[in-house]
């Protein structure tokens, strides 16, 4: 494929953080990342390292302290909200989502950028919605209200909503929090399959370094306010995972890519 190495989302000299009055607090600085078409990338780092802040900034939901985010080739800040909505979708946690919505209604909302002011769904919209529901294996739960779903099912519904939005880039913030190992693995394997089969660019944050090491095409490691992007293999060899956790309580075995307690 000619555009196999096409870069869809990138950042140059990006510093993220927040403003506390006049004071600017930088959490991660000098981030130069590039996400290619059809790749599944995971972002890892310890709690409070700034994963979510970086993800929100990449999604254009938060302003960077300095530097810029490029969606394809245009700065995300200058993009019209409606155009951006057709290129980038998100899966976030801890949002105030109306749990009265059924799975079908939730997924259908992913089509909002494409519908007219009445929000009427066209045949094409319906095809995208059904495909998203099929890909996430939610057919049986289509008409179930979100408050009746398990955490794993609800997470899948949120992913389906992002799929229905049919954007080239999907950013996910901790999509596997509160899930057991089986559901964690199935979500990541779903994301990887979608990235490869539908040629989407997917970036997801995660706490489960061991799990995503074996499933990601590329990884972004946030450590000491810096971000390093590479393949899981190169990152393992570079020794960055040994230093990831403070106080030397946890070590990392390069051979089997497993953490251990000293």
């Amino acid at each position, binding site marked *: 494929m000619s555009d196999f190495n096409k870069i869809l989302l990138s950042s140059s000299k990006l510093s993220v953080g927040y403003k506390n009055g006049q004071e600017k607090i930088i959490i991660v600085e000098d981030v130069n990342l590039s996400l290619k078409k059809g790749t599944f990338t995971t972002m890892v780092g310890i709690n409070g390292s700034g994963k979510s802040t970086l993800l*929100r900034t990449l*999604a*254009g*939901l938060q302003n960077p302290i300095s530097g810029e985010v490029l969606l394809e080739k245009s700065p995300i800040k200058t993009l019209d*909200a*409606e155009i*951006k*909505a*057709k290129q*980038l*979708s*998100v899966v*976030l946690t801890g*949002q*105030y*989502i*109306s*749990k*009265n*919505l*059924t799975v*079908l*209604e*939730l997924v*259908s*909302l*992913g089509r*909002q*950028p494409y*519908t007219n*002011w*009445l*929000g*009427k*769904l066209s045949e094409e919209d319906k095809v995208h919605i059904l495909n998203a529901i099929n890909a996430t294996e939610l057919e049986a739960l289509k008409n179930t*209200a979100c*408050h009746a779903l398990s955490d794993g099912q609800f997470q899948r519904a949120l992913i389906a*909503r992002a799929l229905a*939005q049919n954007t080239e880039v999907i950013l996910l913030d901790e999509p596997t929090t509160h899930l057991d190992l089986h559901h964690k693995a199935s979500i990541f394997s779903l994301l990887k399959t979608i990235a490869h089969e539908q040629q989407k660019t997917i970036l997801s944050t995660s706490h489960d370094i061991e799990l995503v090491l074996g499933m990601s095409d590329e990884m972004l490691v946030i450590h000491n306010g810096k971000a390093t992007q590479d393949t899981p293999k190169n990152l393992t060899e570079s020794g960055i995972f040994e230093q990831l956790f403070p106080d030397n309580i946890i070590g990392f075995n390069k051979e089997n890519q497993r953490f251990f307690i000293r």
Partner: protein
Amino acid sequence: MNSTGKHSVQFVILGTLLILLFVVNIALGSVLIPLKAIIQIILGDDTVKEAWQYIILDYRIPKALAAIMTGSGLAVAGLMMQTLFKNPLAGPFVLGISSGASLGVAFFILGGSALGLSAFVVPNGWGTILAASLGSFAVLSIVLLVASRVRDAMALLIIGLMFGSLTAAVVSILAYFSPAEELQRYMFWSFGSLGDISWDALIILSFCYFIGMILAFSVTKSLNSLLLGDHYAQTLGVSLQKSRFIILIATSILAGSLTAFVGPIAFVGLAVPHLIRQWFTASNHWTLMPACVLGGAVLMLFCDTLAQMPLFEFSLPINAITSIIGAPVVIWLLIRKKKLLF
């Protein structure tokens, strides 16, 4: 989202109830007028007894129309607030709009003597309306100012509550210094009344009502996106600031003008959206908005029919009736569902 088609049964029931209650509301009252005479009067037959004509045309019909506008306007305002603030307890009154109106009226009715300005008295009706409108507009301006600085929806709710307390405090201070008859006038306004409305006033009210409704329906699609929370709505192409601004303006026009004309009416804005959501099991605002228009109108006509106590000489305060019906409904919903969802 799903089309409104699958809710056609509910819409037909609500529509029928609305027509039925409208007729019942006009037919009942302290004076018994035969249905046949009522129909003749509505059809423009002026051979019917003149007193009856006056009662129907200049009292009962404006009152019924005011009830319809009040119920539907407050229900739509409540629905928008609940979605905007992602809070099932939000209503037009939580924003402090009705507190603002009450404060305006309190200053107008009670302020005169408390501040030693008893000369400054304008004929009752119009002064109240103006004062209430100014009061709600003032509060709205402050809320909008805060909304542009504070991005947190919860903060706005708390500000609304604070306005409520502030109003209560100022009103009690004013009341302390006011003569009994002025206090009584203020109390009567705060009971709410649909009956004192003239055709002139009704035309002004309808004007405000339709502007508010047009604005409200113009943000229906954004309201659907807002069901997912602010961040998701933004990534779906919703301009948060613009939508929020339109929703706040629409709410304050609806709630402000209605409060000014009919007094603070409690619970309709809070209870109707919940009842509709439960009954329709819908989240789509293209279903909920028209359903709230009909449901609010039906509830208000029903409350007003009860309030006027058929065949009795007196009528009860409408605000008391809406509270007596509304409060148990909200409690019942809570007990049944264990949790109110917006």
